[in-house]
């Protein structure tokens, strides 16, 4: 250390030990979150002061052991070792006092790295409730470190911990590794670790055996320490968690509680999020109108009011759903129920290559794939997580609804039947999407090679009341992450799409303006808009893909709509209205009426016959018509490979299904 005014500390501990709660308590809003390179593992840094000393604190990923069990854990642990060796003055080891035995394993491993270390013995209240009495002075003496008993939930013991952080220069007395290894050649633990890690990840049986043996011997030492220092009350204490589990994991009530939870989440992101989403859209369109009147007509005006502002609106509009979904997800995580969700669904989802936790993103996908794909981050197994990300957009999302509604109204003109046929068709479209989810997750299960061992060895932590501070900070992090990472890509792509739809080669647009100059028609504006779209780059692209989409029953007009609605599916409706110069485009009946009158060029066969409509419905059910989803898939997988695969498998399958449907029906 150069000066007395700065100290770098790192928080390390098992998952569920209350490490993040302590980190949030210490740093408040003075924290920055980022990802480890190439991963979505969080890396949090923050600052706080003890008297005049500035303390930089790093919240390192939670882990049970220094030996990783998979690729992501390896990256996390390499990061931990790197931090410890290069930039940390003091390790604050956070341990759950109510589960001391298992929490001390990682401690003994870290102590062997010979860095200054102290223990923040957290959850003293829970330990007390469980009837555990810990002789802290004796434990401190046995382990050879300072121990500060704390309750990060209610700030108990924090001042004590801070004074330890300030005064600890070097406090270690590490002998664990040497106690275990009689072999004198293995005296340096940190050198041995990296060697064993590499070998064990290559599934070297000898290395695995060595690690297993070392771990067992560490536990024997820990057990001796615990026998000496922890007294368990002889009175049998009723365990609250086990009692709640009896209900929440009950074969009947367990499912009732689970589906009720899903229903509430779904209501919020599907129904209640709609209001703020409408306000956001109204605000931005009002704002665009305002700006439009400020700036002189021209390209700059168009770029800002039709490109940039709607682009930003298209990012911000997702925030209500993201906020709601992460409000519930973080409550589920914090309360301990999330691991039960895994536990309940593991058997069913495993068959389809999914994970017990996949069910939350899938249900969320019925509202919107964006927050749902973000929600896959708590799926620990990488393969399960990738499969969940790939298939979630097949769930019928709310952006498909306007497209479905328009097309179904063309299919069933008068729905005066006793049974609501339109409703039934909509329902079957959602069902078809879900079947595709199961089909493709099964296919990916076999296609994706798995280097890592898949397991469900999952700690099910005690139920606890979620901390508001933690929930709030999670929501803040997720919103920030979405806006500044995926949001950037969404904005850029929407500006590109705006450009394609608003510009054309040569002087196409000028000619159209000229042509209509002499006319005095009431619907002049609508006609110009329609012709301009046709003459634009998007129009030219729509025409050029006509040969490809003809076997599906589509003409170039639909082709243009396919291209513009790549921004978001619901844009299909607006584009169709523009291209057919439908004046009163707000009214769905008018659009429906106009479309049903359209005939194919050079004949009187209708364009929107049953075959074409069914083909279009299936196309929108399966095709990856959403650039925002691709952006978020890129963001969450940190690789261009997965959004590309997602695009091609979905759109390819859509093409195939629409082709078959059209050819059979026409």
């Amino acid at each position, binding site marked *: 250390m150069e000066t007395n005014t700065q100290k770098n500390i790192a928080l390390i501990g098992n998952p569920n030990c209350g490490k993040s709660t302590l980190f949030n308590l210490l740093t408040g809003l003075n924290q920055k979150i980022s990802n480890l390179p190439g991963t979505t593992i969080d890396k949090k840094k923050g600052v706080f002061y003890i008297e005049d000393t500035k303390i930089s604190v790093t919240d390192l990923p939670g882990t049970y052991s220094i030996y990783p*069990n998979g690729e992501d854990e390896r990256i996390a642990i390499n990061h931990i070792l790197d931090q410890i060796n290069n930039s940390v003055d003091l390790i604050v080891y956070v341990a759950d006092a109510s589960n001391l035995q298992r929490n001390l394993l990682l401690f003994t491993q870290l102590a062997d790295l010979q860095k200054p270390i102290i223990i923040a013995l957290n959850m003293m209240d829970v330990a007390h409730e*469980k009837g555990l009495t810990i002789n802290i002075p004796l434990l401190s003496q046995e382990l050879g470190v300072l121990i500060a008993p704390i309750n990060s939930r209610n700030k108990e013991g924090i001042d004590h911990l801070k004074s330890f952080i300030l005064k600890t220069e070097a406090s270690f007395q590490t002998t664990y590794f040497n106690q275990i290894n009689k072999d004198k050649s293995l005296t340096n633990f940190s050198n041995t670790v990296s060697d064993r890690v590499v070998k064990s990840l290559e599934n070297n049986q000898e290395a695995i055996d060595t690690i297993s043996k070392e771990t067992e011997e560490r536990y024997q030492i820990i057990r001796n320490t615990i026998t000496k220092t922890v007294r368990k009350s002889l009175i049998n204490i009723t365990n609250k968690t086990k009692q709640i589990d009896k209900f929440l*994991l009950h074969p009947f009530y367990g499912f009732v509680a689970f589906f009720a939870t899903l229903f509430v989440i779904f209501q919020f992101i599907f129904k209640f999020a709609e209001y703020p989403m409408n306000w956001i859209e109204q605000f931005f369109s009002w704002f665009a109108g305002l700006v439009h009147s400020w700036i002189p007509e021209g390209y700059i005006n168009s770029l800002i009011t039709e490109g940039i502002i709607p682009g930003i609106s298209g990012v911000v509009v997702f925030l209500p759903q993201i906020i709601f979904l992460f409000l519930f997800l973080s409550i589920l995580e914090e309360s301990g129920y999330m691991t039960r969700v895994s536990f309940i669904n593991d058997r069913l989802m495993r068959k389809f290559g999914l994970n017990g936790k996949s069910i939350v993103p899938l249900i969320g996908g019925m509202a919107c794939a964006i927050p749902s794909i973000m929600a896959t981050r708590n799926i620990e197994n990488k393969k399960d997580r990738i499969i969940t990300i790939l298939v979630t957009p097949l769930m019928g999302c709310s952006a498909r609804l306007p497209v479905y509604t328009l097309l179904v109204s063309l299919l069933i003109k008068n729905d005066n039947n006793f049974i609501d046929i339109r409703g039934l068709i909509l329902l079957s479209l959602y069902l078809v999407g879900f079947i595709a989810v199961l089909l493709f997750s099964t296919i990916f299960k076999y296609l994706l090679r798995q280097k890592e061992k898949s397991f469900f060895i999952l700690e099910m932590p005690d139920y606890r009341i979620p901390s508001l501070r933690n929930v709030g900070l999670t929501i803040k992090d997720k919103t920030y992450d979405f806006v500044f990472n995926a949001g950037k890509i969404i904005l850029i792509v929407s500006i590109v799409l705006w450009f394609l739809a608003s510009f054309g080669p040569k002087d196409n647009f000028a000619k159209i303006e000229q042509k209509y100059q002499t006319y005095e028609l009431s619907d002049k504006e609508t006609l110009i808009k329609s012709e301009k779209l046709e003459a634009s780059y998007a129009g030219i692209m729509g025409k050029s893909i006509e040969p490809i989409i003809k076997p599906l029953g589509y003409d170039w007009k639909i082709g243009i709509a396919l291209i513009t609605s790549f921004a978001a599916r619901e844009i299909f409706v607006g584009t169709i209205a523009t291209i057919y110069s439908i004046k009163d485009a707000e009214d769905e009946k008018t659009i429906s009426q106009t479309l049903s009158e359209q005939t194919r060029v050079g004949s009187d066969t209708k364009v929107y016959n049953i075959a074409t409509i069914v083909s279009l419905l299936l196309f929108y059910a399966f095709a990856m018509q959403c650039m925002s989803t691709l952006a978020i898939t890129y963001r969450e997988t940190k690789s261009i490979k997965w959004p590309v695969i997602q695009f091609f498998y979905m759109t390819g399958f859509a093409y195939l299904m629409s082709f078959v449907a059209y050819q059979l029906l026409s």
Partner: protein
Amino acid sequence: MKANDLIDGQKAVITNVSSGKFQTKLIEMGCFVGSEITRLYQSPLGDPIAFDIGGYILGLRKEEADYIQVEASNGN
């Protein structure tokens, strides 16, 4: 007997953890020889199963619990 063969609420002591792909992970989570294990309850669909391992709850799939050999304590 294996950890799978215990009935709900039955206590046992771990006598061996078979070598194989889950061995290290199981030991790290506290399933080492000599540790106490109690079967708590199973998932509504029958698999996975929750165990009490030295004071905390650990969920294991049946195929993983198969790696753990136990000796049931006298009585329950």
